[in-house]
């Protein structure tokens, strides 16, 4: 039986990354979908940037910001004595940034698809803004949010470049499945490579099929 530690680490990293990306993506998506403010298109572009930039460039940006001498990294090490570089938390950071745009884009489209008339109706029926969001906007956007979340999870699982830059490739510590495959092929260990590739392919195909199902049911309506 090949060593499956990288897979468990990948699942853990992808789960945390998706959860963090979800919180930020929903917030920014709601903001950009519901309010027209100065610089909205620019903000959208910045938030979508990780989708089109090379992962290594992203990794470099993350080092600049979160590295030991970085903008936020130096603050972290000065006040808490911790650094995210070369830790699994660093891998979470990289995966979060890489997965974020997929969730943000789906969430924005989902929120824009919720008619503001439903929200107005809820206000007239006595709801505060917070209650409108949780009782109307979020449930009506749920399908799109779930599809975006699954895509983001699949993307977070598969990241290589950004994670390598930030967290390195330390066996048993920061070596995720994607990197383990690379190492296994380099070392000629095709048995391990095949196992990891097969498991990851099955997981990703399952996720994509489920996402498509959600999307098509969303189109058909209730």
């Amino acid at each position, binding site marked *: 039986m090949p060593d499956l530690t990288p897979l468990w680490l990948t699942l853990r990293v992808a789960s945390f990354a998706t959860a963090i990306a979800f919180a930020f993506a929903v917030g920014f998506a709601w903001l950009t979908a519901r309010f027209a403010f100065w610089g909205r298109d620019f903000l959208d572009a910045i938030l979508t940037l990780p989708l089109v930039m090379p992962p290594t460039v992203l990794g470099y940006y993350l080092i600049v910001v979160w590295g030991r001498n970085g903008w936020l990294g130096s603050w972290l090490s000065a006040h808490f004595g911790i650094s995210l570089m070369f830790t699994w938390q660093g891998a979470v950071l990289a995966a979060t940034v890489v997965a974020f745009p997929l969730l943000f884009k789906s969430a924005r489209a989902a929120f824009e698809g919720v*008619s503001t*008339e*439903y929200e*107005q*109706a*809820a*206000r*007239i*029926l*006595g*709801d*505060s803004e917070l*209650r409108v969001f949780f*009782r*109307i906007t979020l*449930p*009506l956007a749920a399908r799109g949010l779930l599809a975006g979340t699954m895509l983001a999870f699949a993307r977070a699982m598969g990241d290589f470049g950004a994670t390598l830059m930030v967290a390195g490739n330390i066996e048993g510590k920061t070596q995720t499945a994607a990197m383990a495959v690379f190492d296994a092929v380099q070392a000629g260990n095709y048995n391990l490579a095949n196992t990891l590739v097969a498991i990851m392919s099955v997981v990703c195909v399952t996720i994509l099929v489920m996402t498509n199902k959600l999307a098509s049911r969303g189109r058909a*309506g*209730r």
Partner: protein
Amino acid sequence: MRLEIDIRKTLQSGGRRFELTAAFSSRDDLTVIFGASGSGKSLTIQAIAGLVTPERGRIAVGGAALFDSQQGINLPTRKRRVGYLFQDYALFPHLTVRENIAYPLKKAWPLKLSSDSQLEVTEIMESFEISHLAASYPAELSGGQKQRVALARAMIKKPSILLLDEPFSALDSMLRHRMRMELLDIRQRFAVPLVVITHDPADVEVFGDTLVIFANGRVEEISNRKKLAAPEDEDGWRAKVCWRAQWKKKNLTAQNFAMASGS
């Protein structure tokens, strides 16, 4: 009931500019705001509900100010106690009919409705004859059923005024006639004043005790049905066109009477 409105609102999108100057008051329980689309009538009831905020002016229902720019009053929508019937009803698609109607009664905690509220929902569904639809979703309902559900949802918290935005435009003409009668009946049962927005003269005949006619963002005419007896008075020609059937009937009866007594 007294409804007082005196507001100004400017909308600007791109190069286009729309200016609304609406000032009127109504002492009747049935008020119709009549006008073509784009005349500012929708914007006016949206302002009453607090969905749009005028630049300045005053809105008062039954003497209580909902909005007053001079006194700095601007109640949030949720505190205005208005009922609102949207043109396409705005029933929440993810909730059943029963959940839609119970929506305003539901609190953050406890999650379940109190038994009093449950009873209230059951009763209002019975009075609107929609009990059999309780478990249906809005997409499964016909136009008339949707309207009854939307009315039940609007009335369950006993609003102090009910605003209706083109309430019958989505219905076929037979159903339209029936729903008009049902709405009059609801007005009686709940003793709630109605403000109806429409561009259909037939609605004016039924609901227009006070008729406010809008054109190009301004109030063109204000007429009162009670003054109809003297057709040559100050009421405008548009009001007479809307009330023509009633007016004709009245005049014909008078003529017949004159002929009968003359012969």
